[in-house]
């Protein structure tokens, strides 16, 4: 099944403090409220610019810094559907998979802000509908596929104790 959406583009080394700053943790009892502060230190109006189904596209080392799982959670909560980057920081990568947010490793150089993408995770391709180009997705290892197919690690654990 394909996902369609528009791109919000970022550069290298986007850290989890930028995704959701530490000072907003007091809002964590209310994820919907917390999500309104997504990327607020970089762009106070960012939340208003998101359309449900949009994608985040970064460069190298996306999600570095703090281990806060709130970072991928506010991304999902804001209606964003996937994050694409050339590489991810490992904790953010795990956290995203664990909560069922697809994190996609691919060459993001040619993708610009506002581009319309079609992403097909099963076929492993990203089509840039504005540029008419196609990128291959680096396939996931089996364990990640299993977790994602269950909808996250929590659902996996409900059915299986890592046996």
């Amino acid at each position, binding site marked *: 099944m394909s996902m369609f959406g528009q791109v919000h583009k970022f550069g*290298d*080394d986007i*850290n989890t*403090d*930028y995704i959701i*700053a*530490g*000072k907003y*943790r*007091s*809002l*964590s*009892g209310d994820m919907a409220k917390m999500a309104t502060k997504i990327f607020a*230190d*970089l762009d106070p109006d960012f939340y208003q610019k998101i359309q449900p189904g949009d994608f985040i596209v970064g460069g*190298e*080392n996306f999600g*570095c*810094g*703090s*281990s*806060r*799982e*709130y970072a991928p*959670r506010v991304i999902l909560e804001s209606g964003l559907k996937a994050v694409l980057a050339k*590489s*991810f*920081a*490992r*904790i953010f990568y*795990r*956290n995203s998979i*664990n*909560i069922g947010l697809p994190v996609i490793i691919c060459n993001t150089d040619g993708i610009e802000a506002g581009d319309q993408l079609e992403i097909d995770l099963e076929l492993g391709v990203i089509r840039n509908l504005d540029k008419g180009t196609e990128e291959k997705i680096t396939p996931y*290892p*089996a*364990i990640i596929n299993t977790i994602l197919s269950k909808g*996250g*690690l*929590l659902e996996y*654990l*409900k059915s299986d*104790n*890592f046996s």
Partner: protein
Amino acid sequence: MGQTIVEKIFSAHCGQEVQANDLVMANVDLVLGHDYNGALTIDIFNELNKPLCDKDKVIFVMDHVVPSPSEDYSRLQGKVRRFTAEHEIKLYEMGDGICHQLLPQNGHILPGDLIVGTDSHTCTYGALNAFSTGVGSTDMVAVLATGKLWFRVPETVKIFLNGKLPEGVYAKDIILYLLGQLSAKGAIYEAIEFSGPVIDNLEIDDRLTVSNMVVEMGAKAGIMPGDEKLITWLKSRTDREVNLVKPDEDAVYKKVMHFDLSNLVPQVAKPHNVDNVTDLAEVIGAKVNQGVLGTCTNGRIQDLRIAAEILRGKTIARGFRLLVIPASREILIQAIHEGIIEDLLNAGATVLPPGCGPCAGAHGGVPDDGEVVLSTANRNFKGRMGNNQAFIYLASPAVVAASALTGTVVDPREVF
């Protein structure tokens, strides 16, 4: 085939020989949570609705936003207090100190252990010859319920630190320098194995400073081989048997790097990236409004001693604010005994209770718009200390203390 330290630790925790890049299910010795991510972890655990696997493998620490500045924080912390009481889980209360100080200091970490925590600086314990790394709340729930977690065994980069560290140059300068050399993405998914005479000569406190910041290069762990010095240090903190894990002579490394640090000079990471590192000389004289001496990187007794030596009998610059946050209650008491706290207070410093202090920007010590903060912490991201209009520089305790005297960046080697 020979194994790295990391491959040996994972093999011991998987019940079979493993090597780099294997995807494995490993038994975890200890899992750490704190007040910052604790409430989320507990919510997920409750949703899973399974019994706790082993309460003795779990520690929570109240360190990030203490004492609570608001009712919202108090509710989040209350949840951690009730959960740990109900399940009889070990809880370090506010004022006890920062998790990454308490776990090593109180003998919870042994060489060869496999530890995860919902904090990215869990990598600190690599200095004790353990494998430790940060994870998220859902991963922590997996460990709470099963005692296990899946990992990709990381490839190891071996870094030899050769030569002899000059006077006035510290562990913080070493790790800042390496960050500048390798960059914030220089070691993504990799483990770093440190070795060489510079590491051998460091005290354990200083080794913790180095391992603490490997996550700033993206590394999964920053592990050290351990030696007699480590064994002696651990013996004063635990009765458990200490067995070092050494790499095999023919272990396979992704890369081997050598650095000679004999001519290293004080370093600084400029705003707003941890790898924006230069020689301190480049920013000498820049105006600074606030100094932060503390955090899990540099809030240990040795750090406070260095600051006290610089500030004893002197007064910090008018208008400059120096925040001192000992990393644990034990360190604070020791600093009181040694007269360090009195020296720092007399010089004009403000001492905050043991904990993370202003490091994560949630309370106490948020800078004003346009202000410059010189901090001994590990991150200088825009907004990190709670105001995205402020500028954070990272340096050693000596640089922070020396700069407090003039309110501008000063080379500590000129103050001693």
